[in-house]
């Protein structure tokens, strides 16, 4: 690989009480590439994303950004590095409107007063650049949006901040055909603009379409970290379900047999 990873995790462990969810996980995200994170239900994908985002403290392991070790103790640290996350459970405030949600925690202000006009203009701009047509008004409360619309808002929120890394936890799981299309296009566009994208998905067609690399998790361990062009869909299914793939060349499947 010519470029070096923008974000790199080495030997990550994470337990919830006695449940050991992540075992010595290595993860690399490259700028301008889409890395797909695949794995069965409960493999630990969402946990890994939350660890990257600073939501869960790590039990052990190294967190490197731009080649340097960094300390991430909370969501603020992660977003200061330029890491944005779109969570599986979205985490929007239903009582707030679209603009308010997009700027939550990072409101624009003039003096002590919120700068609503700038925020609304900026939100409009970003939504328009993502070709969002289905939202009736940016001042609509999130409780009035459909699942797909909420997803779009959450992604637009991540795109708002000129982020360096965007993590998307199953962004297309609840979407119809057209909206899935839009989100995948958007994912590709984000990566093409230089952002490092991590995409969690159960849909291998989607993964093979947009991803440059695939990292497979099996029971909290990395089963494989390979370039998409080097694997077939059948091999990835094997990695997801059994943690190993017989005809995958050994170097690409580091720890599955360990």
């Amino acid at each position, binding site marked *: 690989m010519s470029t070096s990873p923008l974000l790199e995790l080495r030997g990550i462990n994470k337990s919830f009480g006695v449940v050991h969810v992540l075992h010595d996980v290595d993860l690399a995200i490259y700028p301008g590439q889409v890395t797909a994170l695949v794995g069965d239900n409960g493999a630990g994908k969402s946990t890994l994303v939350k660890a990257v*985002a600073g*939501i869960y403290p790590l039990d052990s392991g190294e967190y490197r950004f731009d080649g340097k070790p960094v300390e991430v103790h*909370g*969501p*603020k640290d992660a*977003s200061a590095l330029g890491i944005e*996350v779109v*969570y599986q459970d979205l*985490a*929007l*405030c*239903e*009582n*707030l409107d679209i603009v*308010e949600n997009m700027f*939550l*925690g*990072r*409101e624009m*202000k003039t003096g*002590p*007063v*919120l700068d609503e*006009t700038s925020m*609304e*203009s900026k939100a*409009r*701009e970003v*939504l*328009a*650049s993502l*070709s*969002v*047509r*289905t*939202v*009736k*008004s*940016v*001042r609509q*409360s999130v*409780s*009035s*949006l*459909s699942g797909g619309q909420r997803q779009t808002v959450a992604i637009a929120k991540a795109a708002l901040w000129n982020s360096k890394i965007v993590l998307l936890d199953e962004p297309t799981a609840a979407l119809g055909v057209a909206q899935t299309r839009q989100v995948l296009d958007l994912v590709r566009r984000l990566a093409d603009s230089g952002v490092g994208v991590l995409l969690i998905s159960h849909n291998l067609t989607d993964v093979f379409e947009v991803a440059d690399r695939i990292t497979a998790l099996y029971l909290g361990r990395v089963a494989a970290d390979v370039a998409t062009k080097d694997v077939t869909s059948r091999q990835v299914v094997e990695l997801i379900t059994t943690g190993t793939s017989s005809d995958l060349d050994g170097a690409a499947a580091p720890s599955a047999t360990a």
Partner: protein
Amino acid sequence: MTDIITDAEEAGFANDRTQSNTLGEAARAYVNRVRGGDMGALPAILGLLVLFIVFGLANDRFLSALNMANLITQAGAIIVLAMGLVMVLLLGDIDLSAGVTGGASAAVMGLAIADHDLPWGVAVLGALVTGAVIGLVIGLIVAKVGIPSFVVTLAFFLGLQGLLLKLIGDGGSVRVDQEVIKGITKNNVPPTWGWVLAVVVIVVYALLALRSHRLKVSKGLQHQPLAVVVAQIVALAVILLVVTYVLNLNRAPNAGFVIEGIPYVLPLVIALLIAWTMVLGRTAYGRHVYAVGGNPEAARRAGINVDRIRISVFMFGSSMAALSGVIAASNLGKVSTSSGGGNTLLYAVGAAVIGGTSLFGGKGKARDAVIGGLVIATIANGLGLLDQASYINFIVTGGVLLLAASVDAISRRRRSATGL
């Protein structure tokens, strides 16, 4: 108008209208919101109107200038307490000790003046600090230990009554006859100054509202039709001018005396209303309070310090309770062992909920406390004039609270059903 739509289409917002074209459309949009369960202050305002008509017809003294002034001084303490509770309710929490926090804080003020001859300013500051400290402790326990606020503040409800007994002795009371403090509810703004105040408030509000409307139009942002903005300004002007007129009438019951002017408590309430409306609606802090009330996990992931918000809200709530205790002491002329006990707290919770604040968190405004507080005070005042036994008052107020809570719960269900 047409070019706004074209712009929006170019920007990819085929449906994103920045304006409801006509007054009719704006009205229809509002009706739809109400149907969808977003009632806002409407039920409370209608209720207040009905109460005024019923009591006005039932007793000709109800609408008299003297009684209106009474009503306002009675409502003052309830409204201020309810404003603090709106904050706490916004988080989905409750402060059952707010009433007695007011009583204990007022006792601190009363004793500071009576026993220690401190100036009134220092005494009031002492009351506010007492409230803030109580709120700090409650907030710390709720946020850091993780006990539901219902239980923590129930404990404080009992404990603070004990503190109050200790402070002023069994069955005793502290007289409050300091001029300024008594004056909050007993003295009136000179009529000329009353008019000046009313006009200034109206003009400033009108200028700000029109300026913000113009700004939104020029930037192509979502805005209400100009007619609605003007209607709101006119409504505010009419209410303020009528209230000022009525309160500036001579309301002395005996000839030869003159009692006229707006009781000082009214400008105090209006100032607090403006301040809290600004804080909740226009600052990042206020936005974060709503966020924590709506979805604490989302707030946390957005980098908001949820514990700090919760603790500060309890501190503000209890400080407002302290101020409410001072106003009640001013009205009563004393602080007694039962100050802030009894139905004080329930009246204030009722006021907030009747005004439209949700018990489920995330929804509410400072103005809810004012409208709801007026409803509660009107019921007590009107039934009092009708010489009804006080049991009727309890039953009616309890019924109204239940009604308001049902409206809240049902409209919440409708909101999630219609997604409004």
